[in-house]
């Protein structure tokens, strides 16, 4: 009886064992679960809009100007390098649109308007596909090639720092709120706009926009633009929030890294994303004179992009005294009025903010 039971058990046991799925199926199911897990995480982390508690501190324009250390290199000349070939072939020429406007009766000799008088018009607005000039603003866009990278250089002169602005997607500060660079630019009447620091993808990084402090959590290098027009890049270890607030910060971005060290090109950076990539970056010559650089990349046969070392050297060659890398890659987009200037990688992506130049006095 006992032996018969044992034999019976042996004959039944294999049938009671759960059927094993083939190994490829097991691997496939695990991979699907991993993919699903990552997508669900990305939905919560990137896509779903979330309110962020802001510092809510409005930073008024200071009555006294901050002390600016002398720039290592300062140039007001048109920033073109001799070794580079300028090409405007891809930018269709258009007839200049001119609009008459009343001229200013008097000019403060210390103002940027007087300082850059040769860049501004007497009130006439000149607008082409590569240029915008008015009594308060001058922007020139050039397409250039450097090695195997195509980049766009927007040279900017302005008469007031409040023309250098930034804007949020949907006009609201928050996580997961994104929009196309062009749409944000058009909504804000931007003349020139570029992808910002994509603050909305992180919980960290100083965020000061248009004179308002939104986030005061430090993260790596910071770019600060002051009300007096000076711009500085600050390493995280040297950052002092009280100082920049006291000195009148108008904007602050957190992406980085900084690209010039005391006006000198750098070879090591506070970033691990050094390979060739599309880039967007801001350069500073002197108060009132800035540049946007947009490098196209990841497009074989057209432009491979730039390393941070190459980008740093480019800003040095341009004569900038400070420069800072903003969100590049697929985010790197430059717009001029209602047109995208560059060729974004995979048509670009929606992001949370832009930097832009406006000319409020002119319609």
């Amino acid at each position, binding site marked *: 009886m006992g032996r018969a039971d044992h034999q019976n058990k042996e004959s039944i046991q294999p049938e009671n*064992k*759960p059927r*094993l799925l083939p*190994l490829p199926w*097991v691997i496939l*199911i*695990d991979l699907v*679960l*991993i993919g699903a*897990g*990552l997508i669900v*995480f990305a939905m919560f982390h990137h896509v779903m809009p979330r309110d962020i508690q802001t510092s809510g501190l409005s930073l008024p324009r200071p009555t006294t100007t901050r002390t600016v250390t002398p720039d290592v290199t300062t140039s007001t000349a048109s920033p073109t390098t001799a070794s580079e070939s300028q090409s405007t072939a891809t930018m269709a020429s258009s007839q200049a649109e001119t609009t008459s406007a009343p001229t200013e009766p008097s000019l403060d000799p210390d103002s940027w308007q007087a300082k850059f008088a040769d860049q501004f018009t007497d009130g006439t607005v000149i607008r082409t596909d590569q240029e915008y000039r008015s009594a308060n603003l001058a922007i020139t866009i050039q397409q250039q090639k450097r090695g195997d990278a195509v980049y766009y250089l927007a040279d900017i002169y302005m008469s007031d720092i409040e023309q250098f602005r930034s804007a949020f997607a949907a006009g609201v500060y928050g996580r997961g709120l994104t929009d196309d660079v062009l749409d944000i630019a058009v909504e804000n009447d931007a003349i020139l706009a570029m992808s910002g620091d994509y603050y909305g*993808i*992180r*919980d*960290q*990084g100083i965020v000061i926009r248009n004179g308002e402090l939104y986030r005061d959590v430090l*993260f*790596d290098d910071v770019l600060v633009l002051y009300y007096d027009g000076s711009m500085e890049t600050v390493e995280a270890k040297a950052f002092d929030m009280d100082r920049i607030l006291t000195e009148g910060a108008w904007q602050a971005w*957190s*992406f980085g890294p900084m690209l010039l060290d005391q006006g000198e090109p750098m070879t090591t950076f506070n970033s*691990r*994303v050094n390979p060739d990539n599309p880039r967007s970056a801001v350069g500073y010559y002197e108060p009132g004179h800035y540049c946007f650089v947009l490098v196209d990349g990841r497009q074989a046969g057209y432009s491979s992009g730039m390393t941070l070392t190459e980008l740093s050297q480019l800003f040095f060659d341009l004569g900038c005294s400070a420069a800072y890398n903003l969100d590049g890659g697929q985010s790197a987009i430059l717009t001029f009025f209602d047109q995208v200037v560059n060729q974004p990688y995979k048509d670009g992506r929606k992001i949370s903010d832009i930097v832009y130049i406006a000319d409020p006095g002119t319609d």
Partner: protein
Amino acid sequence: MIRRALPHLCLVGSIMMLTFIVIDFFNRAMHFIGGNEVFNTFLLIFTLLVLVSSIWTICDHRRSQR
């Protein structure tokens, strides 16, 4: 059932964690992982151990089921 599913869930979780650790390594701005380097190293080791352990357990289960 739970005994069979658990190592697979550990495997999925550990690979997801490794993905975040790698992304965070190249782009710290994502800030998936904390800023403490020692903690990050231990987390990486722990994740790798869980990964190896879960694969091992899955293999053992399959072998014993045959």
